[in-house]
């Protein structure tokens, strides 16, 4: 899928899109690799998704004492918002609303 933000076009697969949505809407400002594993399916996908999002300038990676944390860049936040808007306009956003509502 192609998403545009700040005049740039990003071609994202479902794994990258899922990771961005999780990072933007889960409710805290950093995620671990095992969190990304939940969004992308497995460890290898989590690593490659994080690397691709980082290369696109959508995610920052912080490494300290043997673990890594990932945060959205400002551009990453805007792309995640575009994904939300598009999903809402297509009537697809319900599951995320539900997930947030269940645990609120």
């Amino acid at each position: 899928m192609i998403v545009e933000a700040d005049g740039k076009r990003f071609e994202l697969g479902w794994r990258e899109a899922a990771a961005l949505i999780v990072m933007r809407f889960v409710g805290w400002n950093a995620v671990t690799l095992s969190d990304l594993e939940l969004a992308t399916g497995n460890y290898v996908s989590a690593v490659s998704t994080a690397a691709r999002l980082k290369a696109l300038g959508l995610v920052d990676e912080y490494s300290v004492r043997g673990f890594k944390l990932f945060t959205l860049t400002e551009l990453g936040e805007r792309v995640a918002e575009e994904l939300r808007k598009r999903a809402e306009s297509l009537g697809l956003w319900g599951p995320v609303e539900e997930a947030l509502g269940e645990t609120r």
Partner: protein
Amino acid sequence: MSGEPDERRELARAVERAARAIALMRKRAASHHIEGEVPKRQRPLLKLEAGGIQLEVTDKQAAALLVVKGGGGIEALNAIARATGLNSKLALGLAKQLERMELVKLLAAPQRKVVILTPLGWEVAEKVERELEKRFSVG
């Protein structure tokens, strides 16, 4: 994004997957949740000027800043807790206090928390270090 069938399917899959991950992460987070509490026993250590403003730095704040500086500007919150002798609740409160002073940025996932010095925090940490060296230098 055009909303064509393939893209719609990809987006639907992404949303479904993200929703499942969010639900699970938020349930897991409940067991890791701690509220920060600013340590009450903090002694004023020094006053300094940084970034054009006057700051008063306490002993605990100075220790935390020096620990993060020692890590190259980034350090795990539990390392700060160990170095300052605070429990995780108080260490989190201290980190939030430093964040309000714009000296650090706190990156917080429920099970992992990391503190990063801002440029102002780095400047303050350097000044604290110099001042303490001066105070405790022999002769």
